[in-house]
Structures are given as structure tokens and as C-alpha cells.
């Protein structure tokens, strides 16, 4: 039997000292495409993405992609970010301020090439280093294609401070997709983009994911907008206030009650 492309069964660590074990369970049976993730502020969307990216050491549970355990706290498995074929676009990301747009993209594409992605010209040892100096700050062809796909090739010579929010969001998306990954974690990638642009970007994203046979988990505050693109939606429920009074530190031992505040709801196919 083919392994499930994505299985997630996690207990999210709470913010700060308040470790309220909140359980999230969902699976993805399709090989590629967009899965939406929504929920009110503070419901743990960003934490979930960080756990899946391998940036949250306190997580417990299971994340399995194509049958490979990225995280399995029962077995003690926790692959570091570097060993997960994952690309993560954090919320409201800013470009590196000391580089212009082109340098930002060249930086990312070089890293992707050294990870074995892109059509690197056959290199002959020492010569390749020399060649990369000669090439200077120019984008390799495969990266140029990604950049054009996201419609940002006109902005390459701008500094990061000169960009509008929408432009910065497009460039951050392009930079994220320079990396080859099995799973893309996108935290509100369309923030700052106008409504027409959002629809266009969504189609670009869906097409790119289909071609790369990759999955994306996309955080959105406007689930309706994502309907035509995503084939499913994970909705995190708001954290219930109740037993613990605010301000009191909660003992770490209390979090073992997993699933006490369940919050799973997986809608079926969205048409």
C-alpha cells in the first residue's frame, strides 16, 4: 500500500509557559496541491507550520511525509530543518535588508543549487568557483523562470525598502519557490496583495505545485478566496478559555492530557 503523502497528529505547545496540549490531526491523501489552514488569531496556525518545518523543539506527535517520519516523539525522531524536504515562508517576511531584490534571489538560488536543485552547469572542481565569481550577481536560467512566473522580474534592481507590501510578498514567494521541496508551508503568502493579484498568484501557485508534484499547506484568513484552489481546509478552533485563570503559570505536567481540548475538524472536498 502506498504511504499517505502527509499525516499529521500533533500536540501543539502553547505560547510561553502556558503549555496547553492542543491536538491537531489531519491527513492528506493527494499527492500534490494546496491544503488550506485557517482559524482565528492565536489558534496555533503559525506554531503548526513551525513544528512541521522543524523549528519548534517542544513539539510532540507525528509528522509523516510519504511514509517518512519527520517527527515521531514516540520513537524519538525529530529531523532537523536541514534534512526535511520542506520550504517555509514565514508570515510578513522581509527580504534581507542589505541586499537588493536580485541579490536576495541569487542568494536563495545558490543555496538551492548547492542542495542539488536546478540545472547546474557541469562543474569541474576548482573552475566552478571561479565561474560563479565571473557570473557575479546574475540569476541562473532556472531561477529566472521562477522569477518571471511570479511577475517580479521588473523589480530586480530595487532595494528591499523601496517595495510595496504586495511586491515584497511576491518576491518572498518567488524566493521560497526557488527551493525545491516536497512540502511548502506558506504563512499568509498573499498578505498585502490586491484581490485580483491574489487570484492570479493562487493559480500560479497551483500550477507550480502540480508540476513539481509538491504539497502546500497555506495559511489564510479568507478561506472563501482559497476555495477554487484548495482541495481541503483544516480549521483550527479558537483556544477555549476556562479552567486556567489567566496570569497563573501552568505547570508543565498538565499538558500530558492530550486532546483534552480537541480542535480537529477536517472538511471534505471543497467544490
Amino acid at each position, binding site marked *: 500500500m502506498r504511504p499517505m503523502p502527509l499525516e499529521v497528529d500533533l500536540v501543539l505547545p502553547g505560547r510561553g509557559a502556558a503549555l496547553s496540549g492542543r491536538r491537531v490531526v489531519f491527513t492528506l491523501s493527494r499527492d500534490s496541491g494546496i491544503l488550506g489552514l485557517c482559524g482565528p488569531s492565536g489558534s496555533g496556525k503559525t506554531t503548526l507550520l513551525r513544528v512541521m518545518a522543524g523549528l519548534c523543539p517542544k513539539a510532540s506527535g507525528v509528522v509523516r511525509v510519504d511514509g517518512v517520519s519527520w517527527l515521531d516523539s514516540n520513537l524519538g525522531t525529530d529531523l532537523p530543518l536541514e534534512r526535511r524536504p520542506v520550504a517555509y515562508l*514565514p508570515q510578513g517576511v522581509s527580504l534581507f535588508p542589505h541586499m537588493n531584490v536580485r541579490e536576495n534571489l541569487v542568494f536563495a538560488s545558490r543555496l538551492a543549487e548547492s542542495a542539488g536543485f536546478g540545472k547546474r552547469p557541469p562543474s569541474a572542481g576548482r573552475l566552478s568557483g571561479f565561474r560563479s565569481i565571473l557570473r557575479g550577481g546574475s540569476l541562473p536560467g532556472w531561477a529566472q523562470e521562477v522569477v518571471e512566473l511570479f511577475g517580479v522580474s521588473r523589480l530586480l534592481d530595487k532595494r528591499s525598502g523601496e517595495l510595496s507590501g504586495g511586491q515584497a510578498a511576491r518576491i518572498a514567494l518567488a524566493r521560497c519557490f526557488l527551493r525545491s521541496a516536497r512540502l511548502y508551508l506558506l504563512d499568509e503568502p498573499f498578505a498585502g496583495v490586491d484581490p485580483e493579484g491574489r487570484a492570479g498568484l493562487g493559480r500560479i501557485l497551483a500550477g507550480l505545485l502540480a508540476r513539481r508534484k509538491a504539497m502546500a499547506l497555506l495559511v489564510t484568513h479568507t478561506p472563501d478566496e482559497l476555495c477554487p484552489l484548495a482541495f481541503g481546509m483544516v480549521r483550527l478552533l479558537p483556544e477555549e478559555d476556562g479552567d486556567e485563570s489567566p496570569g497563573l503559570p501552568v505547570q508543565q505536567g498538565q499538558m500530558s492530557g492530550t486532546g483534552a481540548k480537541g480542535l480537529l475538524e477536517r472538511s471534505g472536498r471543497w467544490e
Partner: protein
Amino acid sequence: MIHSALSVTVALSFLTATILSVLSLPLAGWIVFSRSSWTTLGESILTLTLVLPPAVLGYLLLVAFSPDSLPGSLMARLLGHPLPFSFAGLLLASLIYSLPFAVQPVAQSFRQIPLRTLEMARILGAPPFTVFRKIVVPMSLPGLATGWVLGFAHTVGEFGVVMMVGGNIPGETRTLSLKAYDDLLSMKAHGARDSVLLLLLFSSVSLVALNLLRRKGVDSHASDAP
């Protein structure tokens, strides 16, 4: 006479500031980014010369540099002459004395780099050394420049350590501040005035440079916001 004291001072301060700027990168990197608990000890040793009286430091360095001691004899064999009362010895002493002044500003700029910026580079697949080379160092250029200027200015003005380790040899280890002191003792008021004026000039130029750098640093941080 004043020319030789001036050239000794400028050569000493320039070399000290430049070598310290290079050294400050790995040192500050270790202090700020290492998770080892040794960093606290390292940082304390690094800032020790801030509170140690220069005469004490000069004495300790003389003892360490003396050809009778192990480090001193090793250095003497390497250089072909004993360290004390030579330019090389003076340079080594200045490096130790001015170390915290050059390293602290660099460490401070390393600390100011937002964690999410470093994390972003890691997410894009950059190994730690690449993050350091391509993100941390380029974003800390104002701090590096500040460290250079402080190291330079501090070496120009040092007196006690220079006096004890250098031995005040004209043309080799006599700096401007030593010359001002000598001239004053031997009642050469003009010579002392010239040295003091030169020292004042160095200090004011350094101050202007530091203020310009600080303004630049503020500007670059203001433009960080997307």
C-alpha cells in the same frame, strides 16, 4: 622628532585597529551565537582590560613577554629578538589592551540582527558559516567600523601599557602621548603642545566619525522595516 613619534603612533594604532577588526569577527561571533556556557567566562576575560589598571596590565605583560617565561621565549625565538621594548611587543600589548573596545561594538551589532532574519537564511538552506559570511557580517558593517575607530582612538591615547612594555625608545616605541609627557618633564613646552594638539585632533576626528557611524546605523535600522 614629532614626526617619528607621530608615525609610530599612527602605525601602531592602524595595525592594532585593523588586526582587532579581523579578530573581532570570530570572537564576537562566538560570544553572541555560541550556546556554550564558556562564553560568559570568555566575555569576562575579554572585558577584563576595561577595569584592570594599565600599570597592572603593563606589568603582567612584561612578565609574560620576558624571555625567561615560556610565551616570551617562544616569541623571542620566532621574532629573533625579545618582545619587550620592541615595536612588535608594543603591538601585541596594544592588541590585548584595546581588544574589548574593538570587539564590543561588533558583538552589539551581531545582537541587533533580528533572529527571524537569521532563521530565514537557515530556512533557505544556508549552513551556519554562510549565514555568518553573507548575512551577519554584511549587516554589521557599521559596528565593525565603530570597533575599528574605537580601537584606533584607544590605542592612540594609551599611556601606561605603552610606557611599561615599550620602554619609550625614540623612533621605535615612543608614541605621541609618551612624547608629550617627556617634553613636559624636560620643560620643552612647544614640543608638548604640538603632541597634545595632535592627540586632540585624533580624538575629535574619531568622535566625528563615531557620530556619523551611529547616525548611519540608525538609518539602516530604520529602513529595515518593510
